């Protein structure tokens, strides 16, 4: 009997969490099916089902291209920052050398400036490199926030891996590169997936850099594209279309999360060492 109560309580908690998390999104979906004055009416259940907003968004200019840009940029950013961060984290977590703490702090300090404060300087750099209005501009500038984060998180997680396993690999003749790629990475799936997803989403959702460093509609990423969705006149906010676009851009992320969350499993290091 108490088990039943406990279970019921647990599932109630799950339901509550899901409800709170998803409700606004649900509301966005509802809204995306509405148009005109219906937008200003409060409904809890779908009343109309019009795909007009979706059609508008998809046909508006270059939304699909923007989606493609976002995928390309975010994927590249995550790939590069994970690659860099994994190797940096190995050094920071696994090797004792002087100045390690200071180095970690320095890396962290990059994340301490407000984004707008680096905007001007970054813009100068990007123009100096001649990558203004190319995906490279974003891939490059996104490193400023993805790298410190990934380095720190991965360092923390790498520290927890049993020393003996690394030593076994070293004795087996593994170079640090092999240790990282063939021994550590498989054990760090939860951390990798988590940081990867968080960094991906951060890059996916970034707005300010994307707005500033890209100038043509075909190069833009989705958050900017959504922000640039416009109504019929300056002050009109096209709610229906914005919601439809948001739903569209959230779907790939949901799929991504669905695929990768399987990798967030426990007990990966079980059975390796005794002690």
């Amino acid at each position, binding site marked *: 009997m108490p088990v039943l109560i406990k279970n019921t309580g647990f599932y109630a908690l799950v339901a509550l969490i899901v409800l709170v998390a998803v409700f606004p999104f649900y509301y966005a979906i509802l809204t995306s099916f509405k*148009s*005109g*004055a*219906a*937008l*200003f*009416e409060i409904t809890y259940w779908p009343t109309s089902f019009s795909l007009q907003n979706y059609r508008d968004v998809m046909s*508006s*200019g270059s939304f699909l291209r923007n989606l493609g840009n976002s995928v390309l940029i975010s994927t590249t950013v995550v790939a590069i920052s994970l690659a860099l961060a994994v190797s940096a984290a190995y050094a920071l977590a696994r090797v004792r050398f002087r100045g390690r703490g200071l180095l970690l702090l320095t890396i962290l300090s990059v994340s301490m400036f407000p984004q707008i404060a680096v*905007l*001007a300087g970054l*813009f*100068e750099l990007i*123009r100096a490199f001649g990558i*203004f*209005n190319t995906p490279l501009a974003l891939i490059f500038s996104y490193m400023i926030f993805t790298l410190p984060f990934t380095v720190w998180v991965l360092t923390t997680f790498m520290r927890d891996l049993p020393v003996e396993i690394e030593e076994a690999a070293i004795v087996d003749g593994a170079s640090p590169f092999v240790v990282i790629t063939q021994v550590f990475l498989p054990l760090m799936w939860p951390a990798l997936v988590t940081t990867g997803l968080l960094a991906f989403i951060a890059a996916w959702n970034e707005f300010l850099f994307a*707005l*500033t460093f890209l*100038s*043509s*509609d075909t190069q*833009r990423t989705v958050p*900017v594209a959504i*922000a*640039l969705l*416009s*109504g*019929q*006149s*300056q*002050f*009109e*906010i*096209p709610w229906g279309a914005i919601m439809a676009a948001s739903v569209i851009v959230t779907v790939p992320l949901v799929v991504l999360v669905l695929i990768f969350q399987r990798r967030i499993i426990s007990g990966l290091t079980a059975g390796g060492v005794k002690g």
Partner: protein
Amino acid sequence: EDLAFASYTNGASAAFLNRELANFAKQSGHTVKLITMPSSSSEQFAQYRLWLAAGNQDVDVYNTDVVWAPQLAEQFIDLTEAMKDRTAEIFPSIVASQTVNGKLVAMPYMTDAPAFYYRKDLLEKYGKPVPKTWDEMTKTAAEIQAGERKAGAKDMWGFVFQGAAYEGLTCDALEWIASSGGGHIVETDGTISINNEKAAAALDRAHGWVGTISPPGVLAYQEEESRGVWQTGNSVFMRNWPYAYTLGNGGDSAVKGKFDVAPLPAGAEGEAGASTLGGWNMAVPKYSKKQKAAIELVRYLSSDEVQKRRAIELSNMPVLEKLYDDKDIAAALPFMPAWKPIFQNAVPRPSATTKVKYNEVSSRFWTAVHSTLSGNGTGAENLEKLEIELTELQGGSW
């Protein structure tokens, strides 16, 4: 040559612009790439600022707000020579707003001014005239609101406007103050005139609206929120720009055909109301490598025909005086005549005077107004403080 034109667009104007740009390409041989900007004007401004500061050569023509010209004057070329055949036909006040130290910073091509929206049906029902003064408006609004609520419309309010702390509030408040004889914050000669009794009274009056005839949330309303309340039929009056007219008469609007517009109320009987001047212009940055072609584009987009088409297709107000008497336009836009008196009473914001400091002046001003509206000090107190701040900001000169 390939030109790049940075401009905010919306659904309708994008289609329009693309067509015109194609036309232009055919005529001149210059292709134009459109750089879409966000709708928030402060975001556009920040963006332009940055691009201009960095000497960005990738943009050849900028679409600019009325209040920006003085702030960005240094970075745009002088269009006086290139446009001298045109400027004479434009409302002089508009040209003046874009002229800094004798330099025509940007070429105006459309203008804008808000109006007072009222519910014909409700005024009729309660036998009230269109209010001429703010006090009258207050009374009428309260009465109808009470009546309608009793009749079951629980969410009915008297008046909605833009009360959020942003540039829009500067416009709204400037109207209340100017129409009450409280001056224009900073006068054209540079004197700070804002700290006066009339202005304080105007603000206190507006404070009286919040929570009585205006929803408390009005303190966070921008244009769209006001329109939302209005268009769902939950407000008797509204202060808004012309765009709400077309939308209000849209297919599913609750107020379709039930409303009309008038000039904004005045402070006292017999005086004229005031509408803040809005509008858009085009400017060519001095960093552009293709200034000649850029000027051609500006000339084309501000030409008579394009302005006329723009008026007909987009209901944008032209800056050419003569177009207001154009038959085609009058036929296409029946409300246009209603706006003519509104334009006559349009007041500019003190941007020309305060130049690069305008944004900060405006920000201080709307902060003071917002404080007053939210009951954080009286109008007199807040304006006194504002005066000190502005004096300090002014320093030696604007």
